[in-house]
């Protein structure tokens, strides 16, 4: 008998079931299929402008900084400004997300390189798939477009978010993702990011920049 068998037998003995009862199987199939939503806080059930205002309030509340630009063309300029204002080198690492590639980086003096982070980049940029107004949370998917290492290794993490991609709540992220990759499927990594890295492990004092980014800057593209 394998350990798997032992554990399953023990669970079934404790639950007084055999494991092949059709009614139990149909209950879990139905639940997995329907994925009922449960309680959704009313807080974020707002129109587009309301959602954006709430997202910004929540993200700033967890020490992210926000810039709003009116088109994707303005992102490189904003990023250059951010790095300059924070006395950071004019260098940026990014994946090959077509939305980022299409931006006019050449119009800036930024030294842009493409690929995953090897831990030496001070600043990295990724494009959010969506974001959650309820808590000011970004959702970023893994892939060559936005390598996961860029979310964690650079000291400064810049994220581009299209205001039109913003959703109200966690559950809306899943609805969107299922349309993209199919029900029951997931990208290798889905990162929910709510503010820059922090730790409270020394005398319960919250300090930013524990192991991940010390700063999180969100560029919201409206229109």
């Amino acid at each position, binding site marked *: 008998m394998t*350990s*798997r068998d*032992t554990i*399953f037998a*023990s*669970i079934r003995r*404790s*639950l007084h079931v055999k*494991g092949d009862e059709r009614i*139990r199987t149909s*209950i*879990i199939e139905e*639940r*997995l299929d329907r*994925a*009922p*939503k*449960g*309680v*959704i*806080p*009313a*807080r974020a059930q707002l129109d587009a402008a309301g959602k954006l205002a709430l997202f910004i309030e929540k993200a700033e509340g*967890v020490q992210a900084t926000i810039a709003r630009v009116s088109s994707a063309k303005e992102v490189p300029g904003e990023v250059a400004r951010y790095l300059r204002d924070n006395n950071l080198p004019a260098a940026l690492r990014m994946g090959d997300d077509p939305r980022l590639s299409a931006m006019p980086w050449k119009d800036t003096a930024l030294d842009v390189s493409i690929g*995953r*982070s090897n*831990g030496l980049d001070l600043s990295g940029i990724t494009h959010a798939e969506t974001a959650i107004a*309820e*808590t000011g949370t970004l959702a970023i998917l*893994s*892939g*060559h477009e936005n390598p996961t*290492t860029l979310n*964690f290794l650079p000291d400064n993490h810049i994220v581009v978010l299209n205001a039109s991609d913003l959703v109200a709540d*966690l559950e809306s992220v*899943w609805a969107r993702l299922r349309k993209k990759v199919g029900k*029951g*499927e*997931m990208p*290798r*990594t*889905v*990162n*929910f*990011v*709510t*503010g820059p*890295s922090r*730790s*409270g*492990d*020394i*005398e*319960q*004092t919250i*300090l930013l*920049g*524990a*192991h*991940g980014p010390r700063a999180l800057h969100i560029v919201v593209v409206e229109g």
Partner: protein
Amino acid sequence: MSVHPTSHSFKDNASKAIADGSVPRALKNVRQNFIDKRVKAVDALPEFEALRESAREIKNHTLAHLDLYLDRYEQKVKESGGHVHFAVDSAEARSIILDICRKSGARTVTKGKSMISEEIGLNGHLEAAGIVPVETDLGEYIIQLRGETPSHIIAPAVHLTKEQIEKDFRRVHTQLDPNRDLTEKRSLLTEARTMLREKFLAADVGITGANFLIAETGSSVIVTNEGNGDLTQILPRVHIVIASIEKVVPTLEDVSQILRVLARSATGQEMSVYTTFSTGPRRASDVDGPEEYHVVLLDNGRSAMLGTEFQDMLRCIRCAACMNHCPVYHQIGGHAYGWIYPGPMGSVLTPSLIGVDKAGHLPNASTFCGRCESVCPMKIPLPKMMRHWREREFERNLNPAVARYGLGFWAFFAKKPWLYNLSARVAAKAMKLIGRDKGRFQSLPGLGAWTKYRDFAVPEGETFQAQWKRRAGK
């Protein structure tokens, strides 16, 4: 069992912690930070109570169908290219993990925070095999340097002051300038960040725990604030997830419900900084991420808790709200509990995992004030389950003879009202006679354990029932 429990000497452990004084001092921060922040976060979400109920229902439903959801979860992990290993006990989990590490030729292993890793005593096992485990959560890193176990399930080094941490860093980080300034908390954090950054990049295998496993997608979920868990799982070639079987939930929607109560109950955050869903190894379209993805599923006695009066404990999501609010934990800290899980959740879980004969003190060391249950996001009736442990101890004659005889003696009288009332009348009058001058006893035969610390009030004289009868008779 790998970590030697000292729960049987709980009383001594507790007295030492109190006499030492540094524990209650360090824990003052817990009370101000965790408690006040939780209230604020809960008050800001009108749906919090409804979400608690929803979270509870999700776990109850899952536990009732645990075999089926585990089976589905396993199937989905395999479909995504990952491996699933089942471990009946700690020893088996350790050997599975060591085996994976050996096969990948690992020399250094980075680790995200995992209570299951503590439960199975993984670090010692890896070290003995010549593999260096590096804890990367700041608190875990600190206690690893000290050779300690966590004193709190989400703030492992909560019992330490910054002066103690500075001393440990100077002792261990000998390659750094001995004259460096470490008086600020920030400089301690920066030093740990620098030291660990090298380890993250050098590690061959990364081991994390899991807050949830999702049957619908085969994903494992970690919830952290530092980002160490993510660096642990995306940089090495191999990612191993170690989780206990009850961590499974049906769907992404179900996780979302529980996430809403988890961070709020734990740290008072609405969301932790990083909530990460990992599904299998890197894909063809990835340029980073692990090439191998393993999940080790540990039972270690949990399947036997199903269907018993302790099943509700398997709803626990390890938020630590119970210990953050426990007046007993506040005074003695986590180490006094003598094993991996402290506070109220540990007082219920530890006897299940290591035996009530070894951990009998834990469910007794509670005033039943009920504060733990009132803040538990999963509505686990912790005092009720501690009482069930006391019942099992009583049935098995495991509680001290003095307590049994005392209780029996008292019950003998309490079951005979006429005798009880007569004795009470005599005793109250006698005590009044002896103590009337002062109104209080500073020592009292048979009640030394009380009067050692506080005075005992002298009875007013005649009992209430005797006086009432007299009054009614007139």
